[in-house]
């Protein structure tokens, strides 16, 4: 296998592992917060339904955590196996947040184990709820630290480069790089948002399938409120990300907006199809919008692709990913605001079939937006692995067996994906909420 092929297969395998991992990781970051809220509401309102909600979410959560843990281990080790040159270089500067991530993970793992096995051990449910705080903190902080590492790859700093060696390393400066604030905030907000919509989708699906239980309605309202808050937060942070890109990574912004010529009062391109490299067709142009997005000023100058050498421009198809992500985000924000508003005004449309179906769709769509957003962020950094420092093609392994490993992992993820879905569906089908409420009543008597 020559170097070009090794790079190609290494990229494919990394993309595959991350794309698979991110599904479980996003849920892993978001759901502990929702479980905590549910349990807290249950204690505050003395409402058994919320406690049961927390329990049932937790039971499903363990299955996703298991897959998240093993695929997370896989990507952690794969970084070294597939990109040894990159890790050797970057490890000098970015090891600190990577190391801290394992602590956060450790912390979460310990308390999750305790939480799971002490449901009925404490007289006081509040004690049990307290165990969820370290779980949620651990989950969120592992996302914070690992996103710091990714932000560093976009905006490397905290070292000097001389003769191929990194000297004067300052780990804290490397952690708090310019890409960090928007990236971390966006990752957290979208993880909470996506988890909320996925749980909402489950509730809506149960209502559609004939159950008319209060339990599902309470679940739906709770998740929709959380979804609304975080989809708005995600949109605001997304706007800040645009401003960050204009300032620090203009080639990424220009590529995802198909902004070819540097100009003032730049317009924003929506939709469209690219033909023959530079010909944009069927696009909707919103005047001044790109300048506003980039600099908050309708007349500001936005740097275009003409300012960069051809071999340092990311692939232009990231525009489609960008559109996908933004549209889904807006759809989710609108949907949840209608729901919350409709509930407040006591309107019936929120329980109409078409509306419930929209909620069902919003779960998987949010996950698709997460994937699209990550592909956009990662492909938008090409051809660099460390922007401005190390190209992807120079960082991959020189081993000749990457293609075989790719097939091996495709098989693994197929098995894990199907098995986890199968187990989850069966778990809840065999034990519907009505049955569990009855069982609990019997137990108490």
């Amino acid at each position, binding site marked *: 296998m020559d170097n070009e092929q090794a790079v190609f297969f290494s990229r494919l395998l990394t993309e595959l592992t991350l794309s698979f991992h991110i599904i479980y990781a996003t849920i892993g970051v978001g759901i502990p917060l929702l479980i905590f809220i549910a349990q807290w509401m249950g204690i505050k309102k003395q409402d058994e339904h919320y406690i049961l909600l927390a329990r049932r979410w937790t039971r499903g959560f363990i299955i996703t955590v298991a897959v998240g843990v093993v695929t997370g*281990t896989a990507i952690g080790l794969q970084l070294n*196996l597939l*990109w040894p040159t990159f890790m050797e270089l970057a490890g000098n500067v970015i090891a600190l947040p*990577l190391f801290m991530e*394992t602590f956060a993970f450790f912390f979460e793992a310990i308390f999750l184990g305790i939480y*799971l*096995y002490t449901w*009925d051990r404490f007289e006081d449910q509040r004690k049990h709820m307290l165990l969820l705080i370290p779980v949620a903190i651990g989950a969120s902080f592992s996302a914070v630290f690992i996103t710091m590492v990714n932000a560093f790859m976009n905006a490397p700093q905290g070292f000097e480069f001389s003769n191929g060696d990194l000297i004067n390393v300052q780990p804290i400066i490397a952690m708090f790089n310019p890409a960090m604030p928007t990236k971390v905030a966006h990752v957290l907000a979208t993880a909470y948002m996506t988890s909320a919509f996925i749980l909402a989708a489950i509730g809506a699906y149960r209502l559609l399938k004939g159950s008319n239980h209060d339990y599902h309605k309470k679940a739906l309202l709770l998740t929709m409120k959380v979804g609304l808050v975080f989809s708005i937060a995600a949109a605001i942070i997304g706007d800040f990300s645009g401003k960050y890109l204009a300032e620090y990574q203009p080639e990424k912004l220009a590529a995802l907006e198909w902004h070819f010529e540097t100009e003032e009062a730049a317009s924003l391109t929506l939709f469209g199809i690219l033909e023959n490299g530079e010909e944009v067709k069927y696009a909707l142009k919103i005047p001044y919008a790109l300048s506003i997005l980039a600099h908050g000023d309708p007349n500001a100058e936005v740097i275009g692709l003409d300012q960069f050498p051809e071999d340092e421009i990311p692939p232009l198809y990231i525009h489609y990913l960008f559109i996908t992500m933004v549209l889904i985000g807006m759809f989710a924000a609108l949907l949840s605001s209608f729901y919350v508003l409709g509930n407040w005004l006591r309107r019936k449309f929120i329980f109409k079939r078409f509306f419930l179906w929209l909620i069902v769709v919003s779960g998987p769509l949010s996950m698709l937006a997460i994937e699209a957003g990550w592909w956009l962020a990662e492909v938008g950094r090409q051809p660099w692995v460390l922007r401005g420092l190390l190209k992807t093609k120079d960082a991959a392994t020189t081993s000749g067996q990457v293609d075989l490993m790719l097939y091996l992992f495709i098989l693994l993820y197929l098995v894990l994906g199907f098995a986890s879905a199968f187990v989850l569906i069966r778990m809840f089908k065999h034990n519907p909420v009505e049955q569990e409420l009855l069982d609990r009543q019997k137990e108490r008597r």
Partner: protein
Amino acid sequence: MAYELIGISVLWVFLFGYIIVASIDFGAGFFNAYSVLTNKHHIISNIIQRYLSPVWEVTNVFLVFFFVGIVGFFPSTAYYYGTVLLVPASLSLVLLAIRGSYYAFSTYGQLKSKMWIYLYGFSGLLIPASLSIVLTISEGGFIKESANSISLNYAELFTSPLTWSIVVLSLASVLYISAVFLTWYANKAKDDEATALLRKYALIWSVPTMVTASGIIVELRSHNFEHFQNMLNLWWLFLISGMLFLATVRLLWQKGNYGVAFILLIGQFLVAFFGYGISHYPYLLYPFLTIEQGFTSEGMAVALIIAFLAGLCLLLPSLFLLLRLFLFNKNYVEGKYKG
């Protein structure tokens, strides 16, 4: 003490931690599967499940901690080990993934098929075998270096008696450590039948553990003479380890205090593991990479050590809580809580 020594000591301690908790875990899975095969499942499976359930995730973190830590303190290891280990480490990853997720699927998702118990139990034995390849490679002699790449010489690796001795040692010690621990745990749970069975396993597996461990020292003589010499200079450490081994076996034999037996066993492996580690100094990968060459910059080392200390302040109380609730809680161990 120099920073690189602190770094490697920290990592060595964590690797040791992983070896102990993972051995218990892998061994427990195996004994569980074996008991199904021999229709003794009713005797020990409750004990095993009760211990494993709250800690299976924590076990995994020890491994992640080690490989993240080693790349952090010694970034050059990423290049050397990362390049040559692609295939063996990927295989370990797949096994770990299948095993970890199927544990959760079957325990919480009620996948009650014997096939999964077998898969879980026997894949657990392949993992230590595949991970121990790293120790073999670190002795040198299995890596080919060409102009712009390095690669593993598989033919050499798979025909070397050293490789196979290390594999057998890892298997035997996994089963030995696990059996001793579970004997103690079953005894605490006042489950006499399980205690008797596990005690038998512990005694059986003590023999190959000791035989292969001694055999490896002899094989190193012809494979890596420098390392062999260093080990001889530390003869007293290995003597202490051997005596602790005899004391453990004696206690097991006489049905003495199983708690003390387990502590002695930890001591035996700790002393031997550090003896091995110290004699390997200064090489991370013989003869390509020494600890000094591979070390990260001073700024990063200080930051990592501070992060490590801060992390420990968080971790030790949490681990203590976990142990108190599940390992040292009489009611839980005796199965009086339902999960």
